[in-house]
Structure formats: structure tokens, C-alpha cells
């Protein structure tokens, strides 16, 4: 019970802070929105599809994975600010569950990105996106796993590096190849497709596309849920340990 209550406590505070200053929530929607409006129209000619609606049905599921990746990836910067303010240390002298300190923040990221994802999904429907509610929920579950994983990993790295100066180049260095090798923007071919087999986000993109195509039985779906689930558990353990250890 206690870890759940503690997680809820941290989640409430963190969500309150976002609602009080929702500018980052909005900025988080802008990037996928730009891609939807300014990049989407190009895809009709670049993809082997017959019309624009079909292109959006391929593009938007990937876009949502991108949203989940980037939405939580930079959460460590907020944690560094909290470290500097002494908030984390003050939390750590209380008997609050260490996992809750991290999970409460990760769930804030998940809640934010699901709101954003819902918004993008709704905005994409006029462009021709179709989806069944059950498949959508499964896709959002996958996005949630990505959110928890990225948030936990970002926080663990932040606790290790402790400065924005060290975290920023590392995050950017990771973000670009992960994005390019995910097949979100353009389908991957040749040796790039082979390398992408090692990118969990490429699996997530394939699974997301299968779900939006109404094909929940596609083996890619359970495979990617399994991969992401395992990585999420690993990231949670890593971050939980970092919170328990001596950080200032």
C-alpha cells in the first residue's frame, strides 16, 4: 500500500506543478503538431500509398511513438533543478518510498504524454486516421511503457551526471540516432533496417502501426510490448537504485 500511496503523493504534486505552468505541456504538443501539418503532406509521394489518408495512417502511429520518446526523455532536466533546490534531498530524509519518488515523476510524464497523444490522435482524424478503441488503448499502453522507461532512464542519468551541461549533449546524442533509426519519418531499407532491429523504438513503431491498422494479432505487437516491458522494468530498477543512493 505504502509505495502506491507515496507514488500518488508525488504524482499529485508534480501534476499540480504542470497544471500551474502548462507551457511545457503545450510545447510538447507543438513538435508533433508541426510534423503532422508540415511534414505529413510530403509523405503521400514518398510512401508507396495511393492517397493522403493512407499516408497519415502510416505516419501518425509513428509520430505518437516519437511523442512518447521525446516527451519523457528530457525530464531529467527538471530533476536536476529539483536537486539543486534541495527538494530531492529533503524528500530523501523522510521515510517515503524511494521508488515512489521516481515513479511519481514518471507517471506525471506518462499522464502528460497521453494527454498530448490523445490530442494528436484527435487532430489526425480529419486527415484520415482511423482506429478502434481497443487497439487505441493497447497503443496507449505501449506509449505509457515508453514514457515510464524514458523518464526513469532520464532521471537515472540526471542523478548520475548532476548537471545540465553534461546531460544535454548526451540526450541529444542519443535522441537523433534513435529517431532516425526508428522508421518514424521514412521507411527504413537496406542495412539501416538491419541496424534498426536493435532499436526498441523501431519495434514500437511497427507495433503501433499494426494496432492503428486494426491488426492487434500481429506478432510485432506482443513482441514489442514484451521488449518495452522488460526495458521499463530495467530502467525502473536502475532509477530506483539511483534515488536510494547518495545524491545531493
Amino acid at each position, binding site marked *: 500500500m*505504502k509505495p502506491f500511496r*507515496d507514488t500518488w*503523493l508525488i504524482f499529485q*504534486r508534480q501534476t*499540480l*506543478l504542470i497544471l*500551474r*505552468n502548462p507551457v511545457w505541456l503545450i510545447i510538447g504538443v507543438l513538435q508533433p503538431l508541426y510534423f503532422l501539418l508540415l511534414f505529413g503532406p510530403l509523405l503521400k509521394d514518398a510512401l508507396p500509398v495511393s492517397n493522403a489518408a493512407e499516408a497519415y495512417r502510416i505516419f501518425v502511429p509513428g509520430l505518437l511513438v516519437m511523442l512518447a520518446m521525446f516527451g519523457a526523455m528530457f525530464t531529467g532536466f527538471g530533476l536536476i533543478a*529539483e536537486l539543486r*533546490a*534541495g*527538494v530531492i*534531498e*529533503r*524528500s*530523501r*530524509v*523522510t*521515510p*517515503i518510498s524511494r521508488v515512489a519518488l521516481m515513479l511519481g515523476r514518471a507517471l506525471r510524464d506518462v499522464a502528460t504524454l497521453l494527454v498530448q497523444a490523445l490530442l494528436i490522435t484527435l487532430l489526425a482524424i480529419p486527415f484520415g486516421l482511423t482506429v478502434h478503441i481497443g487497439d487505441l488503448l493497447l497503443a496507449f499502453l505501449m506509449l505509457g511503457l515508453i514514457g515510464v522507461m524514458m523518464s526513469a532512464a532520464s532521471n537515472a542519468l540526471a542523478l548520475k551526471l548532476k548537471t545540465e551541461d553534461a546531460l544535454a549533449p548526451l540526450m541529444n546524442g542519443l535522441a537523433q540516432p534513435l529517431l532516425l533509426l526508428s522508421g518514424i519519418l521514412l521507411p527504413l531499407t537496406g542495412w539501416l533496417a538491419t541496424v534498426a532491429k536493435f532499436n526498441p523504438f523501431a519495434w514500437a513503431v511497427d507495433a503501433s502501426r499494426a494496432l492503428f491498422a486494426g491488426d492487434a494479432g500481429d506478432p510485432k505487437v506482443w513482441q514489442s510490448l514484451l521488449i518495452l516491458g522488460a526495458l521499463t522494468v530495467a530502467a525502473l530498477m536502475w532509477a530506483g537504485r539511483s534515488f536510494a543512493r*547518495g545524491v*545531493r
Partner: protein
Amino acid sequence: MIETKGLRKSFKSRQGRETKTVEAVRGVDLFVQEGEIFGFLGPNGAGKTTTLRMLATLIEPDGGEATIAGADLRQAPGEVRRRIGYVAQGGTTWDEVSAREELVLHARMYGISKAEAQRRAVRALEAFQLTEYADRKCKTYSGGQRRRVDIALGIIHEPKVLFLDEPTTGLDPQSRAHMWDEIRRLRGEGITIFVTTHYLEEADALCDRMAIMDHGLIVAEGTPAELKREISGDVVTVGLNGSTPKAAELFDTEPYIKKLETVDDGGLRLYVDEGATAIPHILRKLDGAGIELGSIELHRPSLDDVFLEKTGRSLRES
């Protein structure tokens, strides 16, 4: 209330390619009694914060042991956390929320119910004269107000022991005096207080007992008065007009004078245990011998002198 034995901690820090080991705390034995204000004095980098952070379960000691409020630091860190409050050297509040919100959340982190947390927040805000600003964002507070919030946070769960890391640094003299009053009030409520400081006069005025730390080791421990007495006792300097040798002969045989020195520009420096009681004797003696007294001055050792004696440095220059 607090007992430590051989507490040690070293840090590895990387400088370019080399890793250097900093021995921040090198074996600290301490004993703090229930209900006292215990001062922890030392220059920058002495290891005060590191010691406190170990006692507050924030970092794990490399060696040694400690019992705090009856709970063992290694065996039962969770129990230690429930029984102590800790106020860090830097701030502990978040800019975008109010003192009330911080107090309620912090209380709830101890497992206290929402309603009870709100009641306690009200009480703490009143006790620390924060009610007026309670619902303003923390970023709008003055340094002194913010520091009071930090301390209110530290005691919201009614701990037995409160660790305060430099609670008065950066405060103006008036706020500092207020802070001392707050700390004394907390002791009045039965909380044992462990406070670090750079200010000798603070330790002198506030603390029941104190320890001086330097380079990771305790170099002196006792009440401020004991520490002062330990080094030299009082010094009475008498200015005499020309009859110094005669007076020196006069005082040479007096039992209450431990040592006697001639001052360069005429006069004597007399080392005594207790200046206040020695002065009447000195005056009577001079009067009886018909020696005219030019001036008389009493110097009591300060903790500055203690610090100089124990560490070989003045606190100001370290």
C-alpha cells in the same frame, strides 16, 4: 540521543584523468545528550555537512557506527528517518509552491494523513510567524522567511532530533537573533538540536555543548566555557608608570597568579584562573605597596582563541 563511533567517509572526485580521494570525515566520535543544543563548529570543508548527511541517512558511511534517538543508523535507517528532522545547508523549498503546500506535502511524506498534515501546517506557520505569507509562492519570500520555512519543514513530523546545517548563514544580525530564539524554543519543546555553524559567537551564545571539527576530525569537545577555560584562563593586564620591576617582585609569590609577563611599554600581564575574583586582590596589593596604577584590563579567551589553539589557524583565515 546521538552517539557515533569512528564515523568515516571519503569521496572520489575526478579531476581530468586523475581520481583523487577526499577524506571528508576521518573517524568521528560524538556524544550528544537529550534535550541539548549541540554546536558543530569548523571551517569550510571541515566535514560538518558530510557528517550530518551520514547521520541523516542521506549517504552511507564508509565505516563506523551511530545510534540516533535509539535507532541504529545501519540496521534501521527507516526508523532513524522517522525520528529525525534535517534542514540542509542550501535551501529546501521549491519556487513555484507556497509554504503551506510544502509543509502539507512534507508531513504527508511521513505517512501523516491529509487532514492532520493541514492542521500541523497551520500550527507550524503560526509558530514560525509565516501565516501572513503562507499562501504566496516560495520564490517571493525573503532569505530569512525562506529559512524559517526550511526549519518548519524539518520539525513538521515532531522529530526527537533536529539537524540544522548552518541555519543562520546569510541572515542579517536581527534575523539571526530571531533564529536563535526559534532554536531555543525548539529545545524548550524537548527537541535535541544538532547545529553546525561558522560563527564562534553563535556557538558561544546558543550551544549547551559543542565540538570543533577540522580536516575531518573532532579536535575539541565540551561546553563553550570548558573549552575556553581549557586553553589559558583569563589575562589581567595592568599598566604601571615606571614601577614595573617592583610590582613584578610583589606578584611573584601570589598563589592565584599562574604566570607573569612584563609588557614592553611598562606594565605586567598576569595569568589567572578567574579574572573577576583576581582583580580585587591585585588592586589591594598594588595599593598596599603604594604603586600607582595607570590602567587595568581583563581579557577572557574567546572561542576564537580556542579555535586558534586547536587548529593552528584562526577561523577567519581558514
